[in-house]
């Protein structure tokens, strides 16, 4: 079982307590009604789905129930780091070359 660090509970907890909530850092337009159909499609449906490092939203559903963000490698399934919701994308990732 994976252990995922919840930034609110400040400790690693078993994966069964968590739910994935899709890609992170997708900003909703302030003027959503004025968006063109193409832009709306991009915002609403199109996800990056990378092979490798991805930023995702996760929720500690059966714990503190808070949403937070996680950086995860889709190839190895390894959680590189987690950080609180609302915080910017971390500039440097621990243990990742580049």
């Amino acid at each position: 079982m994976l252990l995922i660090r919840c930034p609110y509970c400040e400790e690693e907890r078993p994966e069964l307590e968590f739910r994935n909530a899709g890609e992170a850092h997708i900003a909703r337009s302030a003027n959503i009604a004025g968006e063109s159909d193409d832009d709306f499609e991009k915002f609403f449906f199109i996800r990056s789905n990378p092979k490798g490092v991805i930023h995702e939203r996760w929720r500690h559903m059966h714990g503190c129930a808070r949403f937070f963000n996680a950086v995860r490698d889709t190839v190895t399934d390894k959680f590189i780091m987690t950080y609180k919701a609302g915080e910017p994308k971390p500039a440097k990732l621990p243990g990742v070359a580049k």
Partner: protein
Amino acid sequence: MVKAAAKTTASATPSAERRAALAGQTVSATGVALAVLPPAERISLRAPEASVAALSKALGVTLPTKPKTSASKAGRTALWLGPDEWLVIDEAGKDPLADCAKVTALHSAVGISHRNVAFSVTGPAAAAAINGGCPQDLSLEVFPVGAASRTILGKSEIVLLRSGPDAFRVECWRSFSDYVFTLLSEAASDAAA
């Protein structure tokens, strides 16, 4: 509404009786005993940091602000569930909802006394029995006495409180209580084996 009406009738005519889920049931195996705890007053409390001091004063118990902790005083226990969320359990028969109603600071207190059913799991194999369905590390170093956490047991969400080195309180939703009690009974006999 129906529940409120039923409560009024119950106090007016002693013949009407509220049946608690699984009331009085017990299971014991070698090293672990399981019992359904008597009804208690409970509230779900949400409040921002600025209101915590006022609420703590009104409730008579300091709301814990550290993750996975609880605080207890005079039969009333406050369990940290999230950064702005607590479960307050009163076993002394006083109503924490009434105490919160006096507080003017921003908060939300919802009475959930009858939503939850509580079990006690006690004995040297108590942690092993709960680990039969709960993936958390329940060793004394990681989950010390007084530690509290919302977590899962099998397919059901529970709130777990360690009340002693060999004693746990398991809170679950009423409609899940049959499942939780059965799972814990099975796990208890496995832990004893």
